[in-house]
């Protein structure tokens, strides 16, 4: 695995000399900021509602973790859904159009070094994205008399509640794992074609299917009243990313969900390796 660093390092350098990386980073920062403000807005509206109807006991239970941070993290998956295929689309497709595939495959590298190197590069980019968006909820941990908190709680007779740090970190961990899974799926999509646009839409389609499997499963449960589809829908729900991510985003760390993401990443990397190797079968 000693070539992984060389492969990943080259990939990242190429990413950062191309406009794609900066376009993605800018778009991501703007969207993250927008969705963060939206979450705060939603929080204020909820509080307003309960204050007006005089439900002060509910008001006391509302907290920043569940009403701001978790919704913010949950909504960011949509941003990942579109941006991560943009990052991964070139990983293998561009090697084919550049002809550099021949350089890599006649060098003393193993297939795993190549595949893992590519994935590590995409994973490093995902990590940068998570660090960037983590700055927004981190604002909520600033001292109580900073302007942002003053603004969030202005107009309410309420002690400003402190958010829970670990719960936020669990949510970010969930989004990070989701991002890595998406990166693995995107890497696989890129290995299937030499056209980056095709790789992008293929990744998007795979990720949507992966997300919607649980919806299909829910329909399956309705059918399951007849007695056949229940076990199938259990499998589909398990395979779908949505439930696992949802739990982590709300701050519930369960090793079963962590194992799920590890399994998905591993499975798509195995598929990628098979697909890259298949050039040799033709």
């Amino acid at each position: 695995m000693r070539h992984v660093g060389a492969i990943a390092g080259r990939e990242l350098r190429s990413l950062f000399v191309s406009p794609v990386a900066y376009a993605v980073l800018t778009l991501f920062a703007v969207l993250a900021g927008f969705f963060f403000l939206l979450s705060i807005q939603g929080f204020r509206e909820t509080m307003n509602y309960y204050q007006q109807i005089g439900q002060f006991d509910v008001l006391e239970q509302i907290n920043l973790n569940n009403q701001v941070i978790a919704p913010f993290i949950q909504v960011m998956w949509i941003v990942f859904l579109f941006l991560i295929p943009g990052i991964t689309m070139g990983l293998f497709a561009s090697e084919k159009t550049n002809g550099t595939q021949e350089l890599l495959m006649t060098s003393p590298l193993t297939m795993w070094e190549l595949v893992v190197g590519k994935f590590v590069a995409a994973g490093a980019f995902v990590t940068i994205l998570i660090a960037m968006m983590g700055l927004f909820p981190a604002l909520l941990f600033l001292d109580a008399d900073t302007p942002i908190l003053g603004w969030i709680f202005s107009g309410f007779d309420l002690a400003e509640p402190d958010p829970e740090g670990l719960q936020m970190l669990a949510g970010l961990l969930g989004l990070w794992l989701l991002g890595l899974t998406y990166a693995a799926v995107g890497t696989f999509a890129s290995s299937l074609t030499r056209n980056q646009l095709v790789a992008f839409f293929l990744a998007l389609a795979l990720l949507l299917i992966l997300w919607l499997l649980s919806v299909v499963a829910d329909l399956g449960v309705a059918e399951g009243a007849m007695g056949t589809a229940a076990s199938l829908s259990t499998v589909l729900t398990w395979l779908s990313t949505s439930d696992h991510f949802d739990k982590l985003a709300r701050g519930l760390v369960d090793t079963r969900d962590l194992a799920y993401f590890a399994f998905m990443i591993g499975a798509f990397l195995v598929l990628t390796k098979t697909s890259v190797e298949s050039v040799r079968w033709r």
Partner: protein
Amino acid sequence: MIEAEGITKRYGDFLAVDDVSFTAQAGEVIGFLGPNGAGKTTTMRILTGFLPATDGSARIAGHDIFNEPLAARRAIGYLPENPPLYPEMDVAGYLEFVTRIKDVPRARRRSAVESAIERCGLKDVHRRVIGSLSKGFRQRVGIAQAIVHDPRVLILDEPTVGLDPIQIREIRSLIAALADPGKSEARTIVLSTHILAEVEAICPRVILINQGRKVVDSSLAELTAEGQSLEDVFARVALRAGEAA
């Protein structure tokens, strides 16, 4: 240095390479000739380990390309038909990356890159981005990539294609210099080309491939001993095969 034995490549019903065998000693420069689609590129891709052969085996510097692929690949420098370049990287950065994936020890990487830049005449452009270079310079970067890890065996697929006459002359003298034992150990060079004059200029030995089969394997001197030119030999072989088909 190269021992190829009965290399065969079959795509479905089509025999791209049919039982090609040859051996090459250190210091030999072999011209790989043949019409388009004769199987030159496929043979070279098999020797470099890019494609597996359907049948047959090959050893590079004593390492079997199927059983010890990593050791065999370390001993090979390969310039494919299209130079494998990353257009967004600069020349020196690209060559540094190649030294890393070709297992050049860390301490020797810098000098390996410098010497490849020197030998391929890339001094003036080594900080330039590859995508902005002319075709001639890109071809030279492609050759630099093949020699940067000082391989014992060099496999060059049409190294002078698309170059102007002066560049062609430079590349030829570079290839001749690489084969020359001189200070370091002699290398074995296999190069494919369409330009018969090129073979006459730099390849003491000629292997002619037609329809996947090796039809001629002899020294240039023997081939042209009876006063016939290489062009006559080439035309005769290509024609005869055409009639047989």
